[in-house]
């Protein structure tokens, strides 16, 4: 996936490792699935020209999401880690990843990290990172179509197109303002407990 597009999504995020982590995962997605890369590239180009056809991109997302197989992604992540062993320091405990279960866990925890980062921001950057977090959750939760749509919506928001992001999310029956409020509500709730010495909730 286009590094420059994704770099734009994590612009302003403190912490070199946080940005590297996001870029690494996109490297994995890009190497696993070239057509997703081209989808993001053309979407970003259309956004910059102001001529995005939401229906067309939603149809493309429907066509392409079926190839986002977590087993395949887990294998690709292993290959990336072999090529870039320095990343093992950024992805502790989950690499080398032999099982999709490890990838689910990694995507889940990264979504949590992105929500925490996002909700420290005000304005559009908050929404950009929340949607990026939801794209990870979508993959982890077995909803690849939603993952693709959230990724595109995140890019639209990063380009200042709230209308395009909201319209895309409506296609998967999600309200843009609603998911941002929910994710940040969850972060506030967690911090409320942490401030009172509760760092985990037993099953």
């Amino acid at each position, binding site marked *: 996936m286009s590094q420059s597009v994704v770099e734009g999504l994590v612009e302003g995020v403190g912490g070199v*490792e946080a940005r590297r982590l996001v870029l690494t995962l996109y490297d994995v997605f890009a190497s696993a699935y070239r057509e997703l890369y081209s989808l993001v590239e053309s979407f970003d180009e259309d956004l910059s020209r102001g001529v995005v056809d939401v229906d067309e991109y939603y149809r493309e997302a429907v066509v392409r999401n079926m190839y986002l197989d977590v087993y395949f992604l887990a294998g690709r992540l292993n290959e990336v880690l072999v090529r870039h062993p320095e990343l093992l320091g950024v992805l502790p405990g989950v690499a080398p990843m032999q099982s999709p279960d490890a990838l689910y866990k990694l995507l889940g925890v990264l979504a949590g*990290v992105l929500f925490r980062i996002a909700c420290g921001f005000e304005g559009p950057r908050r929404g950009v990172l929340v949607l990026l977090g939801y794209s990870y959750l979508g993959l982890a939760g077995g909803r690849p179509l939603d993952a693709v749509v959230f990724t595109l919506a995140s890019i639209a928001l990063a380009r200042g197109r709230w209308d395009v992001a909201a319209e895309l999310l409506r296609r998967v029956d999600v309200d843009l303002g609603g998911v941002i*409020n929910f994710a940040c509500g969850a972060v506030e709730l967690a911090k409320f407990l942490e401030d009172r010495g509760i760092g985990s909730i037993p099953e």
Partner: protein
Amino acid sequence: MGGYLVDTNVVLDVVRLVLVAKPLYEAVMKDLRDAETLRQVASAVDGINRRWVASFLFLSYKCTRGGGCFVVDFARRIA
């Protein structure tokens, strides 16, 4: 949770997912790579239950489709 038609454990799963991300959040934001930090991160990641992810998605979708939402309402109250 009177008035909220959702299982309490689903709400707790949502919070669990955010709580478990704290060690990695702090590590990546402060660029920490010491052994103890990495051990804590590894332990946290390993502790994730896939049900937490499902609960988070389920409740966020449910909350954005109208109706009372404990997570959002409570966050407003403590803000």
